[in-house]
């Protein structure tokens, strides 16, 4: 049965609109990053150059902030997944009482006003003498990231057939072998999505990083916010692109993984 042309066009409109909404700001940032002069109402920059890009990327401050951001977010991701894995496994048990309430409680800090949350965490870190340290920033980032990891992993465990692990056990697999050879491969897609989300949420934290790091732990997101107050579109463009890169790559990978796991 042929699909009417209007319906075919209708199907294209939504994804096209979504791509435009996402791609337009990124395209503008990319143009800003490569422009020498670009003032309103000109639709395009006068000329393009890679001067800003190489200057900012070559700066030791930028490189150090990227390294710090990667280190913080990678550590946060690892810890969040390690903590969330057993918690999600328990939460996903059939007839688990209070599952929805626990997940709502976990997300509660994330829906509180960010300043209040950041201040609260900062006070705790100050008392523990961890404010302004790398460990302090990691602990602060765990608060908004663990709920995402728990929510994604719980959904994965709910769909996961635990009889596969029982089958592996009766075939002779011990606990570690069941985890390595059965559970992890079965939940690979879920784990990647959880890791990507956790990393991105950590990577984009500004207020929490500023307060818990006391300005001593500087990530690329903090440099970007500083550049915003400076008002130089080229610098903003370059830093925004750099800041968006890991998140874009990870989410694309996670999206691909999810699509593959859904496809028959």
């Amino acid at each position, binding site marked *: 049965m042929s699909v009417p042309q209007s319906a075919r066009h209708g199907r294209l409109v939504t994804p096209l609109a979504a791509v435009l909404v996402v791609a337009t700001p990124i395209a503008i940032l990319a143009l800003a990053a490569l422009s020498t002069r670009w003032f309103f109402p000109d639709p395009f920059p006068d000329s393009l150059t890679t001067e800003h890009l190489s200057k900012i990327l070559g700066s030791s401050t930028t490189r150090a902030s990227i390294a710090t951001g990667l280190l913080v977010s990678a550590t946060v991701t690892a810890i969040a997944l390690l903590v969330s894995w057993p918690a999600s496994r328990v939460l996903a048990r059939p007839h688990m009482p209070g599952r929805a309430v626990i997940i709502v409680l976990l997300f509660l800090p994330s829906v509180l006003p960010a300043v209040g949350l950041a201040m609260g965490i900062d006070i705790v870190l100050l008392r523990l003498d961890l404010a302004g340290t790398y460990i302090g920033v990691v602990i602060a980032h765990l608060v908004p990231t663990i709920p995402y990891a728990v929510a994604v992993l719980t959904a994965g465990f709910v769909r996961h057939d635990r009889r596969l692990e029982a089958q*592996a056990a*009766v*075939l002779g697999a011990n606990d570690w072998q069941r985890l390595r050879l059965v559970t992890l491969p079965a939940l690979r897609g879920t784990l990647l999505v959880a890791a990507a989300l956790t990393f991105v949420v950590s990577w984009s934290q500004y207020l929490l990083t500023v307060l818990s790091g006391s300005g001593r732990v500087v990530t690329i997101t903090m440099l970007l916010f500083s550049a915003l107050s400076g008002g130089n579109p080229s610098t903003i463009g370059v830093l925004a692109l750099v800041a968006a890169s890991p998140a874009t790559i990870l989410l694309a990978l996670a999206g691909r993984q999810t699509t593959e796991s859904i496809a*028959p």
Partner: protein
Amino acid sequence: MSLIVDGIVKLFQPQADPVLNGVSFVVEPGSVTCLLGPSGVGKTTLLHVIAGLADPDAGTVHLDGASLDGVPAHRRPLTLLMQQPQLFAHLDVIDNVAFGLRVRGVARRARRRRSLELLELVGIDHLASRSTHHLSGGEQQRVALARALAVRPAVLLADEPFASVDASVRRDLQDLVTSVHRELGTTMLMVTHDLDEARRIADHCVVLEHGRVAIQGSPHEIIGRPTTPTAQLPWSAHRHVKTTEPDSQRPVETPSLVNGSRTSGARP
């Protein structure tokens, strides 16, 4: 190896009636024993207790004279063929069959050779490198059977392994199990509630009812003569025989309990 099930009691809730209430029987070495009974009588639970996937509240399981109390599932020399094949989707057919050998540390070449032998035995060696997604229900159950046999289990437990396939495939699989048993002589304990299946495969039948062994004996003793009134059955299994074999052209035989030997736990 002989398997002795001795007074197994299993409760799902402390105050509730036990699902298994002192189940005892013996599976003789090299025999095929069918565990029969209506749905919900605890057949699967009993297999899980024997396999080490569930702990009994009382009673013991002995294998060749040694108690399996406290032995975790992965250390028991038994395998369990589940109702659904439970194949590992990220592994191809041969790696599924080789799984039990892999976790035992068997070298790659040796485990592939053994897995191919088993796949040949169950008639699907041509599917060795195939993804499990592309197999039919019958092929999947053959892979599961090969995988269970690859580790040379002392006893193969099977939980209604043919329930998820259609009648014609089920008949093929029953014949396959019979021929594999003849070839390898593996001791088997198989759950079914299909009396005809028990008649075709079993050397010995154990019928569970209300958490106890109601009757046990040879299929001939248990299922009996066609003229016996069906009212004597411990459950209405004769209906199951009819409904699970829509393609059968044979007249349905009416099972009975004539000559069946009741155990001390049997109800009147």
